[in-house]
């Protein structure tokens, strides 16, 4: 490379290196070159910033709306005439400059007052919004709790002798000679519809409406108005949507509980398919229904035993008399296995409303009305192992069906039911966690106590706590300092790297050939 070529490409590097060294020269001693460079940088920055502030802030946010508004006021253009009000803001802005006048100084205080007021008003929202979650997170348990976590009852639900239909925001139940829809926020009734006979099988949803099977007839109910029409019972096609929302599984032959059809299962090649699952003596078999040849879905049958199949969105639940399994519906792997006191009436998988704590909980309801909650899979946030018992509760009434949405559990039986708020999955804490919590809480209390200013006389203990607080503050400041060093130094290294790699090395290469 000739020197001319070298200079034509590297003049900017030399300029940059010169600036860097000029600033570093100040570290050695204050010098005129540094002063001059500093004024130049400040000058360039000011000039640049003025243009940018006009172009990026004042022009689009003030000038354009104002001129558009005036145009609209005069009947031209298509902006909003209210934009002309920005003229007043301009006038208000001019008041700043009365600071230069002795006589009309007070006029500038108008705009200062407004600015101060906005600043103060703004503070409330930002302070509370940022800090309340911090307060809640400080409620740390200092030891294992004596009382187990439980779902909280929200409101009662009417009875349903058959599994109802959860179609947010409605829950449709059927018992005796009527079907009833309640909304899911507070459980208030929306409509009711008479039935020709007792409902005989699970309610289902079709594109035309809600279908309630009643013996050899069925009633088609308009979802929005609650008006029903009686018609002869039709066979259920395998592609039928069982439930909207989380559940999509369907027992095709009504009563049989060892066969389940599920829509939207992800096949190994990534497509969504309709799959049929069947308990066989050899184990659980899964078939793809939509494929013509009815391929088996899984490479091998999972080692599970049981007599009932339930749908658990991504999972498939297999229940036996003493044990239940949670199987990944797409892969056929056993995710968890839980012990049961008896054969369950119904099982489901619930998810929480809070996205951060959205962990799958396996629910099982028993004829006695008892409901158990297990960790369906390993929980990342709460560190619960797969299959751990999380909580238990009892309705003291038989339960025929469970469903959930948004962190609320709906449990329904022939003698009525209940909506329960599901608890967040409790954290599995070890001894070291409790020790950390002790340190945390003590530190927090001490530091907060240090900043009491107005208590004239205080007990010795408080003085001790305060002194402790000051010590802990120093510990914190030390940690800040130590943690900052790396960050700060990396900028120095970045600059040194520039000097070495882009300036010195290429220059010497050029010099020495």
């Amino acid at each position, binding site marked *: 490379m000739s020197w001319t070529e070298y200079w034509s490409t590297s003049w900017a590097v030399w300029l940059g290196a010169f600036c860097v060294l000029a*600033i570093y020269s100040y570290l050695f001693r204050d010098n005129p070159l540094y*002063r001059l460079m500093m*004024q*130049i*940088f400040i*000058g360039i920055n*000011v*000039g*640049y*910033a003025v*243009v940018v*502030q006009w*172009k990026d*802030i*004042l022009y*689009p*946010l*003030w000038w354009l709306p104002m001129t558009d508004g005036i145009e609209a006021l005069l009947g031209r253009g298509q902006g909003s005439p209210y934009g002309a009000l920005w003229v007043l*803001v*301009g006038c208000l802005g001019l008041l*700043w*400059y009365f600071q230069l006048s002795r006589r009309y100084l*007070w006029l500038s205080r*108008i705009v200062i*007052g*407004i600015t101060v*007021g*906005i*600043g*103060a008003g*703004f*503070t*409330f*929202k930002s302070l509370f919004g*940022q*800090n309340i979650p911090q307060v809640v997170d*400080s409620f740390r348990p200092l030891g294992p709790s004596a009382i187990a976590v439980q779902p909280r009852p929200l409101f009662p639900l009417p009875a349903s002798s058959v599994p109802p239909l959860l179609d*947010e925001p409605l829950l449709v139940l059927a018992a005796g000679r009527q079907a009833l*829809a309640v*909304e899911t*926020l507070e459980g208030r009734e*929306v409509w009711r519809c008479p039935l020709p006979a007792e409902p005989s099988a699970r309610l289902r949803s079709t594109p035309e409406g809600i279908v309630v099977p009643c013996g050899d007839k069925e009633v088609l109910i308009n979802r929005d108005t609650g008006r029903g029409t009686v018609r002869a019972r039709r066979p259920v096609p395998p592609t039928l949507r069982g439930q909207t929302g989380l559940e999509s599984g369907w027992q095709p032959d009504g009563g049989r509980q060892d066969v389940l059809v599920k829509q939207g299962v992800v096949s190994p090649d990534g497509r969504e398919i309709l799959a049929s699952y069947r308990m066989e003596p050899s184990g659980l078999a899964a078939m793809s229904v939509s494929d013509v040849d009815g391929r088996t879905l899984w490479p091998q049958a999972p080692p599970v035993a049981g007599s009932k199949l339930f749908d658990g969105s991504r999972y498939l639940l297999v229940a036996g008399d003493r044990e239940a399994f949670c199987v990944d519906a797409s892969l056929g792997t056993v995710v968890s296995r839980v012990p049961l006191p008896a054969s369950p009436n119904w099982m489901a998988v619930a998810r929480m*409303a809070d996205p951060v704590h959205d962990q799958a909980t396996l629910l099982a309801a028993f004829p006695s009305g008892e409901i158990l909650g297990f960790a369906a899979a390993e929980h990342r946030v709460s560190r619960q192992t797969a299959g751990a018992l999380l909580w238990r509760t009892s309705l003291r009434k038989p339960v025929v069906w469970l469903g959930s949405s948004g962190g*609320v559990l709906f449990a329904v039986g022939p003698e009525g039911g209940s909506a329960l708020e599901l608890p967040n999955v409790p954290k599995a804490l070890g001894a070291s966690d409790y020790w*950390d919590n002790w*340190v945390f809480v003590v*530190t927090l209390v001490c530091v*907060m106590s240090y*900043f009491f200013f107005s208590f004239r006389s205080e007990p010795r203990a408080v003085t001790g706590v305060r002194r402790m*607080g000051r010590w802990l503050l*120093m*510990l*914190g*400041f*030390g*940690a800040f300092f*130590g*943690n900052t060093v790396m960050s*700060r130094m990396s900028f*120095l290294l970045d600059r040194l790297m520039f000097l070495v790699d882009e300036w010195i090395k290429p220059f010497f290469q050029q010099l020495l050939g």
Partner: protein
Amino acid sequence: MAARRRFIAILTFLAGLYFLLEFVLPPTVPGRTSRGIYLSHDPTVVRLRTGAGDFVDVAVRPGVELSMMVRDPTGKLQAKVQRTREVSVGETLTARTRTFVFGGLRNGLVVDAEGAVAALRPGEQLYLDGSEETPADLAALPIGSKVRVEVRSARVAEVQWGSVTLLQNRERATIQLGPHVAVLREKRKGTPDEIEPYEARVGDTLAIGHTTFLRDQRDTAAQFNTVLGTLALGMGLLSLAMVNGRKLKRSGEDRWVALAFFAAVAVGVCAGVYKYYDPNTTERAFSDTIVFRLLGPVGSTIFSLLAFYLASAAYRAFRIRSAEAALMMATALIVMLGQTPFGMYLTGWLGEQLKALWLPNVAGWILRVPNSAVVRGLIFGTMLGGIGTALRYWLNLEKGSAMGGGD
């Protein structure tokens, strides 16, 4: 004097009041809000007058979108979707009345993919989805493409607001919609969502009421604050000009420095102006050179001075003069050593059983547990201090001499 002071105090109070109310008040006027279970609704119908003088009635349903041309923050005109309640008579709008999949032409009529006739009313035009400006040419339109029907630059002639029927205490009640009447869908947790009436499903719990205007004006309030603050820019410039102008009058080194300053301002202004030129022009290249080769490196270099300052400050300050200082120093040393390979050289021999005592792990624990508790304690203190200070200034309780306190 007292009257002026009171006037300024009232303005201060009002300026803060907006932000406080915006936070505290719910989005609709309490007491004038109806709450109930959604059953059905009667849609809003907007009557538009097109440029050609035709009238088109648009019922607001799914797929219908009303938009208005407004300036975006960069100053360009852009279509902004409007809520139905924001529409007012006399405005100029673009209305998308429906979208469908083009199925072809039959007997000169447009049909959709299902074969139903999707006739165009006067003033309506067909646009290909994705294209912005020109109406689609029906003859050249490929079958199966998604199209939208729009009325452009139409003036709102009349609005029939429609109504919503709710179930309140087991009785049906019809709530009239209107301008500035918001429909909110309640959720189990958190602030209700504002929705268009057609988005409600039977069973949803709705709250319908007049808006408090506050939330709608949030962007304007922020804009007001920004503009007002930026208009003071001139005060800064005057201050700079005065200081450097004074230097200019003096002789010697100062004059040259001041001259260099003014020259640099001129260069900066050019760089700023050229910033908005197209790439690949000489002017833009000049601006980029100034910004990326000069201002950027200088900023990084100033930042990197901190590393040196940090070293000298640490050397001076971290002396074991007291137990407190010793604690601060020890923590800083542990964290610093934990960050570098030396931490393991010093403690690696402790073995796996005492892993918790390895310096990087100790440093991690300090950062995770006690340090985060300290930070939280400080945050809470700051919050209360902030509330007190803000209250004093907002209510003008401050008896200091500034802020209109004295003259």
